[in-house]
């Protein structure tokens, strides 16, 4: 239930009706982490989600600390309040075999194809084929129906990085060089229709640094040009401003009160036994004061850089979510925590 006195919990769901969440961002900014947290958030309260990766890196397995995922959907986590997260590592060669089987009932000929390296070859070099196979798997999972309705309430795709996302999702254009008729083309068109529909959004993960933010802006432009719907911006690894606001302002102006700081440090006993009355105590307090103020100055520079980057991101006019840098790295507990924070900020309903 949303509380009025809890500003974190908006009780809103920005992506109502979305079935496919594509997560991209500059390399290393936290795509896999955010995709996993989002899959958890979307599953919470009894839903079922699929978290899929497409680069064969087993990032999901590493994150959830389970053995490498096979090309097979596996339950990997239970969401808060009940709900299941399944995971899948989509492998283009296996996807092609599955595909050939489906359309041509190849049987043993499929094995031969594999043996002479044709599968490897086709998925490596045929322009666009690989990406159609990968997005095709997500498409299939989104549309798959059980007895009572869709098998998955949502599919979260841990996608390639920003540099490749436009090409990856623009499957139609990519296969333009391939057979003009035939299953690949038909498939590409159906995928494209889903990707451009209201059921799909592309979220961008970034950190508050120049290069990732620049890449985010470039990607937004590219996605929009390709008629793909940009979802939210997830600002990852945000650090708490530790200093009280007035102190930050003063530090930014470079006029923090040396004397007051020195007195406080002395009062806290940091001058040592003799206090500042002793020469070594006084010198120590002077050193510590200078050191702390230098650290404060760097901290404010850092915050200024971040403010500029936030400003850049705000020009994109997309819902923006912020999640903290978790000290000591991400474990399963931290992942649930991040999921909750995303839900609280409205990235999922967090039922």
């Amino acid at each position, binding site marked *: 239930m949303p509380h009025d006195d809890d500003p974190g919990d908006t009780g809103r769901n920005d992506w109502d009706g979305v079935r496919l969440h594509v997560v991209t961002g*500059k*390399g*290393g900014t936290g795509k896999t982490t955010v995709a996993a947290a989002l899959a958890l958030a979307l599953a919470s309260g009894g839903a079922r989600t699929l978290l899929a990766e497409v680069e064969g*890196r087993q990032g999901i397995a590493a994150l959830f600390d389970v053995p490498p995922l096979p090309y097979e959907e596996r339950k990997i986590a239970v969401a808060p309040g009940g709900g299941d997260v399944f995971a899948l590592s989509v492998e283009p060669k296996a996807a092609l075999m599955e595909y*050939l089987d489906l359309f*041509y009932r190849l049987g043993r*000929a499929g094995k*031969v*194809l594999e043996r*002479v*390296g*044709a599968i*490897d*070859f*086709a998925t*490596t*070099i*045929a*322009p666009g084929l690989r990406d159609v196979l990968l997005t095709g798997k997500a498409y299939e999972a989104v549309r798959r129906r059980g007895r009572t309705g869709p098998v998955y309430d949502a599919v979260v795709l841990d996608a390639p990085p920003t*540099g490749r996302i436009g*090409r990856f999702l623009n499957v139609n254009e990519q296969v333009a*060089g*391939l*057979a003009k008729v*035939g299953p*690949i083309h038909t498939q590409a068109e159906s995928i494209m229709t889903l990707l451009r529909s209201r059921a799909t959004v592309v979220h961008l993960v970034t950190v508050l*640094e*120049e*290069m990732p933010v*620049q890449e985010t802006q470039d990607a937004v432009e590219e996605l929009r040009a390709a008629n793909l719907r940009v979802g939210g911006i997830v600002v990852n690894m945000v650090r708490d401003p*530790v200093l*009280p606001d007035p*102190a930050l302002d*003063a530090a930014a102006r470079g006029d*923090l*009160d040396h004397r*007051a*700081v020195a007195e*406080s*440090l002395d*009062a*806290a*006993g940091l001058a040592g036994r003799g206090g500042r009355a002793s020469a070594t105590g006084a010198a120590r307090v002077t*050193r*510590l004061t*200078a*050191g*702390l*103020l*230098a*650290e*404060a100055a*760097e*901290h404010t*520079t850092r915050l*200024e*850089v971040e403010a500029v980057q936030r400003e850049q991101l705000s020009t994109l006019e997309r819902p923006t979510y912020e999640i903290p840098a978790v*000290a*000591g*790295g991400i474990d399963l507990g931290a992942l649930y925590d991040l999921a909750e924070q995303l839900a609280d900020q409205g990235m999922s309903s967090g039922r």
Partner: protein
Amino acid sequence: MATSGTTRGAPGLDVDGMLDDPGIRVIVCCGAGGVGKTTTAAALGLRAAERGRRVVVLTIDPARRLAQSMGLRELDNTPQPVPGADPAGGGSLDAMMLDMKRTFDEVIEAHASPDKAEQILTNPFYQALSSSFAGTQEYMAMEKLGQLRARADADPASWDLIVVDTPPSRSALDFLDAPQRLGSFLDGRLIRLIAAPAKVGGRAYLKVVSVAMNGATGALSKLLGGQILLDLQAFVAALDTVFGGFRERADRTYQLLQAEGTAFLVVAAPAPDALREASYFVERLAQERMPLAGLVLNRVTTAHAAELSAGRALDAAEDLDDDDGHALAAGLLRLHADRMQRREREQTLAARFTGAHPAVRIAQVPARPSDVHDLDGLRDIGVSLSTG
């Protein structure tokens, strides 16, 4: 002064000694994405040039503002002087940004007759291969390095040191593996079978395979369209006459990397993933007998009041909390504690790396509060490299 952290137990890396050694002709900066390879390469190049070397830096994907400040334009694909590098020490600095497609095109143009080149350049497979194949960027980086080296050898007045950045791969190993992967792929059995089945293998082999091949190419052409196989055959046939084998070409540059005069620097951030990558890479270099100069641990957290431990700082902050008059100091102490804790975690990771690789020399470079986007920033990094 910021404590430039030397890693517990690890021998220090003598960066200036390396830059001043005329025997060192190529420095390669490797590492996982985003750790600072490009920044390190540019900083080393500038420092070497200002210490008297005639340097060319091959960057792959510099941050936009950094590229601008170095006068790098995508259009060139050939080294240009960097405005603002100080020539007082008798050195010089040129830099370029790799244009992978253009490099590939130039290789084709240099080795094929004009009409053959035209045939290849317009082939859809070539276009896919030269613009999006995973590994092409690594291959072309190697190719460019080979070209720069050849020019440096032919014209002693050009450069005596080449500093190479590597592509933003997810794995540092890609730089070593991708070119050969691409090479063997293009030299591969299947591609030859498709191009000219009769040329490959003995008769017995052919019998077994040709049946399969008919099935295979049949299914493939059904799936992908018949035109694509024709394009592919044309592509492979054309390439074949042009290249003395892709793989041999890659092998040659690979050997250059094993040669004396090459130094590898592995760049890593003080984070578990990046250091794990660095570990793999260090082991691999040893296997390949490639000369590792050391590890650059970039963006490490430093403290200006390192004599005060995190625990003490937090205790003191708590003591001060009761009195509003001390709020500022309490805030500063917490900020400091935060930094010290981060620093501690990072140094533990670094020590763990050193435990596994005790002989690897390490230079630590502090995280600056803002990005590195001009020559002064690069000079600062250069100073940190040589003192950390």
